């Protein structure tokens, strides 16, 4: 079974969102997603300063198997990206909820975390 921490929310497209305080959220992909993709070989990130609409493609995660688009689980401004993934994309496989985070976003007013699933719902979704 895949690991689904209860301290964050999940999108149907398998990104997670964790509240980092002050209207900022951390974004990554779930354990289920990294396991399904297999060995991750490249992560294409957004640029800091980009403004994302919720549901917009913000990057690509590539594995030996396939390249998959990443969808912004919330709207807002990208304030930081995990540049360490450039040289070590396998970190997403090894630690998807920790060092394998992808970006930090300052949510637009009225951020939509409410539209995402909690751990229980996501667990049912991926069961």
């Amino acid at each position, binding site marked *: 079974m895949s690991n689904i921490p209860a301290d964050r929310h999940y999108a149907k497209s398998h990104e997670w969102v964790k509240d980092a305080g002050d209207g900022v959220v951390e974004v990554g992909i779930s354990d289920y997603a990294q396991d399904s993709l*297999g060995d991750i070989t*490249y992560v294409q990130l957004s640029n800091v300063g980009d403004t994302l609409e919720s549901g917009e493609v913000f990057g690509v995660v590539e594995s030996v198997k396939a390249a998959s688009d990443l969808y912004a689980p919330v709207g807002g401004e990208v304030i930081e990206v995990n540049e360490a993934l450039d040289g070590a994309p396998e970190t997403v496989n090894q630690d998807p909820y920790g060092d394998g985070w992808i970006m930090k976003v300052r949510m637009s007013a009225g951020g939509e975390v409410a539209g995402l699933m909690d751990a229980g719902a996501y667990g049912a979704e991926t069961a």
Partner: protein
Amino acid sequence: MANAENPELLRGARPKVEGSDLPGKDPAGLLGGMSELLRTSLYAFHVAHGGRMVDFAGWHMPVQYKSILEEHKAVRTAAGLFDVSHMGEVEVTGPGALAFLNSLVTNDVSKLYPGRVLYSPMCRPDGGVVDDLLIYDRGEDGYFLCINASNVAVDLQWMQEQAKGRDVTITARSEDYALVALQGPRAQEILQGMTGAKLGVLTYYHFQEGTVAGVQCIISRTGYTGEDGFELYHAAADAPELAEVLMAQGAAYGLQLAGLGARDSLRLEAGYPLHGHEIDATISPIAAGLGWTVKLKKEGGFTGAETLAEEKVSEARKVVVFFRTGDRRIVRAGSEVLNAQGDVVGRVLSGTLSPMLGEAIGSALVPWTESTGALHVDIRGTSFALHLVKPPFVELKKSS
């Protein structure tokens, strides 16, 4: 005598499951339809060892156990064990066997002697490749062929047609044999501890018949990884026990189970063709750079010889090139290849991330006239130059 009507001959090609004329299709989705696929005698072994099972050519096969990249590196640095029991085996016997095989394939079968293995494409009259295969000379027992899993039915039908009027018997043996590949620099040490066969004198592309841990095997010093190693053909019933004993014996040497994912990246790094990619019905061995296997002058000729002779000197021919990009983004099979003017001149045949180089590598089919020019591909709006290289991409240590 060859007999195309004999259903026995197609035994190895038949799906074991009834009610499905397309064993490779999986209409119920990723999980639902898997039970319709064929299983090798190591299916339970794979599941028990955490293999991630996928549909490959109608078979349930492990694409990986833990990580394709780690399994790949284990084979380059220590050893890996692959189940390739899905591959097909065929026996060709009878007084006309040598003449038949020599007319069937492009390489020269008359150069074989008992204990020797030959690699060869098998072509149609138009030079397209029906399949590529290994031919084992078993002396009085005739010839033993190893063919690609996805082509078993087509190959058998093709061979039967070509054998009409010849004094040969073609027997499908796929269901009788399991096949594992033990590959990597530690392979000989691992295997020598389990067999009385003198592996030190068994050189590349030779084989012996002997026992490994008490199991009767064809011990073949061949492989598809570019490393030293062995392929062990044995009775399907013995496979689970042999695999467990090999893994136990190999543990101290760093032996890991390796799946089809690593098998594909290893063969591409080594520059070996895969049927359906670098060679197929439209890509001849000449185009694929396998001219060394096409013996145009051999006695009696062979199917496809005339077309291949013309292609060899044609300025309109296409060629398979191998490339690296200097970037980690994988250039996927099917991608368009463009020249300096931005014209689409070819397509990518295989592409992966080389685990040893940490960059994208691949192969592409382009017109010969474009093969020395600047070529590039586009990945999601970014252009990447293809740096053409003569494979292998990494130094290989295979036995010689």
